């Protein structure tokens, strides 16, 4: 499709010249300095992804397990519906939420606020994919496990979930791809910075945020070039995760791809 081709072409074309080892590893500092790099943005994105997963994956897994194992009742249906509603929240509203809760509490912008915002975005996706993956496990496996005397909770965790793990991991990877590109909630929660990681309660930079700041400063040619380079890195990350997921699920059912 034409826009995709154009996007890829432009980003690669304009971004590639900017990429070099120093570009990838040096901090931004003063953005008009031609020697600045996006090392801290990359580090920031990785840290945010890590903390977000720590928060969202356990909650999402357990919520998905609940919906799949115990969720045939009215409560379950409500949760499922609200889960889909949450998945469609405008990301900037989630940013406002994280701001009001975390930034106000700590007193200034911080990485943990960004992680909270991103985990709210990630949670519904993980819940949905986990539930669907578990539902696909044939009941014969569950029955066999119970027949052997394995307790209910152990069955769910060690037998059913392990069988469903491909779908679950697919969902997690796709949601990571989604949140690494999210800018709006980060604008309201982490502020961005020119320096490397200095603590979870301090502002932090991230790839999409860096791109946005470069846009704001795009009168300076070095900032503009940096923006294209950052865009290239980001799009490689996102598309790489997506393509990786496609490759992993090749030959399997298509539900996992369609769900996120």
């Amino acid at each position, binding site marked *: *499709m034409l826009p995709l081709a154009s*996007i890829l072409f432009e980003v690669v074309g304009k971004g590639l010249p900017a990429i070099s080892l120093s570009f990838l590893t040096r901090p931004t500092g003063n953005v008009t300095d031609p020697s600045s790099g996006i090392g801290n943005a990359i580090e920031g994105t990785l840290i945010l992804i890590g903390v977000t997963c720590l928060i969202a994956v356990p909650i999402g897994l357990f919520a998905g397990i609940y919906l799949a194992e115990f969720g045939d009742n009215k409560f379950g249906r409500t949760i499922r519906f609200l889960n889909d509603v*949450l998945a469609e929240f405008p990301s900037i509203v*989630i940013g406002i939420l994280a701001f009001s809760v975390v930034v106000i509490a700590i007193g200034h912008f911080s990485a943990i606020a960004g992680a909270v915002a991103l985990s709210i975005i990630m949670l519904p996706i993980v*819940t949905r994919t986990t539930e669907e993956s578990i539902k696909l496990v044939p009941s014969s496996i569950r029955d066999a496990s119970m027949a052997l005397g394995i307790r209910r*909770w152990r069955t769910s965790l060690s037998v059913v979930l392990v069988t469903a793990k491909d779908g679950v991991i697919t969902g997690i990877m796709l949601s990571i791809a989604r949140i690494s590109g999210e800018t*709006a909630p980060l*604008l309201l929660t982490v502020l961005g910075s020119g320096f490397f990681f200095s603590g979870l309660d301090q502002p932090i930079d991230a790839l999409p945020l860096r791109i946005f700041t470069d846009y704001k400063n795009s009168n300076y040619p070095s900032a503009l070039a940096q923006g294209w380079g950052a865009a290239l890195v980001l*799009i490689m990350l996102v598309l790489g995760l*997506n393509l990786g997921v496609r490759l992993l699920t090749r030959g399997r059912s298509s539900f996992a791809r369609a769900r996120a």
Partner: protein
Amino acid sequence: MSLSEEARPQQAKTPIRKRLDALPALRFSIDDLFETSTTILAASIILIITVTSVLLIRGSIPVLEGFKTGFFTGTNWISVAGSESYGVLPYVLGTLVTSAIAVAVGVPLSLGIAIFLAEMAPWSVRNALSRVIELLAAVPSIIYGFWGLFVFRFWIRDYLEAPITSYAGAFPVFQGTPFGLDILTAGLILAIMIIPTVSSISKDVMMAVPSSQREAAYSIGATRWEVVRTGVLGYARSGIFGAIILGLGRAVGETMAVTMVIGNASGSAALPTSLFKQGATMASVIANEFSEAESGSLHLSALIGIGLTLFLFALVINVFAQVMVWRVLKVRGGSVE
């Protein structure tokens, strides 16, 4: 499903077990703990939605108290302390106009793609093209914005807006000298962004139409197009409608791409009177002004007020869409066979 007492695997009667069995109030097992903990975590979703609503309302109270309904109908946006005046009407209109453009342009394209994929393409083409569309959906919106700002808008300016201005520049909706960063461009980028969503859901819905519908239409002599129109589209209508509404919901909530190409006017200058004017949407205002608004100020409260309005918009649209898509996808299996 919870198991009954007999069905639970028998636990060895250790001494502790025997004592626990004797105390009915303390009878629990790790199974119960498991069930309870998963229930609690699932309920966190309700918690998040509730907290969001409460915080948005609480945060907006200062500005709503100050301006009452004037907040929703006013057009000023002055945040200088002392002579503040806030009205969200231009931004609401901006959101509506850009989303309308997105739907008007994006939906026909999406439906065309969906019909092509569902009805006419050989399965290899269908798979390949579906993958491409999924990749298009995965591109982060800020990259759309960046590309839109540095590439797309020049296309629009040179190939779309310049000709229109020279021929139809007198029409009120085309007034102004376009330089590419305006409501039209924002609407068009939104259209590109909703195509993957709308087309893939529509395609799924159309493929879920049982083939008996198509066969019946063929058997009474319908042409290819008539089969699609009556047999497939009629049946899938509410699902496709739901897909469109879902796309609309996405367009309404989209922030970054719009912020970067819409030109960012403010206050009454942001009223969308011409497609070539700079404008602003609810989301773009929040994105632009939030980090500078002082904590606890009326300005911040006004921004949260916009957030509340946007939240309600998106909520209504998305709940509506969910219900519609749900209905069709549920009917899939047990229909007229």
